[in-house]
């Protein structure tokens, strides 16, 4: 498994962990309130910080581990195959992201709740980000 493959796998997991944590807290707050919890700046910022910290730390740790064990190319080198995989993965991700935005927008026409639209758009972003990471891993395992 290459450095980038491991990195994307770790980031994908980090996105899912941070996203699940965010929605678990929103769920608890909503139960306590008896209605859908409104967006909270502190929670949203905490989610972003945790996400960046988890993905940053995973790439850093992986980079250190690879630097100690790998005699091959420089760690973090981005070759032609990496570029092709990145392009294919991001192109497919843009469709997932579009769907992750379309669905909440259409749903909003029926429920008219800004809070629900906010949370569902975050769900769409989490889904797209995780898909992007796992598509990278999937494409790395295909013979390009």
């Amino acid at each position, binding site marked *: 498994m290459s450095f980038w493959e491991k990195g994307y796998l770790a980031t994908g997991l980090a996105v899912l962990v941070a996203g699940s944590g965010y929605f678990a807290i929103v769920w608890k707050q909503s139960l306590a309130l008896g209605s859908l919890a*409104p*967006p*909270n*700046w502190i929670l*949203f910022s905490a989610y972003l910080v945790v996400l960046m910290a988890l993905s940053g730390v995973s790439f850093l740790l992986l980079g250190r581990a690879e630097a100690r064990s790998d005699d091959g190319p420089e760690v973090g080198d981005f070759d032609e195959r990496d570029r092709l995989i990145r*392009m*294919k993965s*991001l*192109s497919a*991700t*843009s*469709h997932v*992201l*579009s769907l992750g*935005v*379309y669905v*909440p*927008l259409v749903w*909003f*026409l029926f429920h*008219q*709740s*800004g*809070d629900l*639209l*906010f949370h569902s*758009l*975050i769900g*769409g*972003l989490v889904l*797209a980000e995780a898909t992007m990471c796992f598509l990278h891993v999937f494409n790395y395992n295909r013979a390009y």
Partner: protein
Amino acid sequence: MSFREQSAWAMMAILTVGGLWYFNKVRAASVALGETAPPIMPFVIAYIVLIVIASIVAMSVLGMASPEAANAPADERERQADSRAGDLSGYVLGAGVIIGLLHYPLHMDGNMLYHIGFASLMLSQIAEYGLRIWYYRTGS
């Protein structure tokens, strides 16, 4: 100019005109209401129908003008250009949605969040066709 570039120009023009028409209606409704207008179903449906009909007409006219080019599959360079344009347009959409998400907790205006999300979708589509044209022309 290749068939695909002509199609991209046509789609970009249609989406721009459709988007301007839609948001002009939303702006007028918001001014009349004195606050951000909620999404108005007839406008949304009219926008989608307008885009679909205009796209079919434009593609039919372009296809009749050069039937061989219209039926030819995309070559490797065009596939790469389409892929890169799709990739970058995703960033436009993502950035627009994040702006909407940052705006919402400050103003608690769900209708505005909807319109920002809808505008982001439109802009990302326009950007995708614009980037395709750019890559077809520059070959990068």
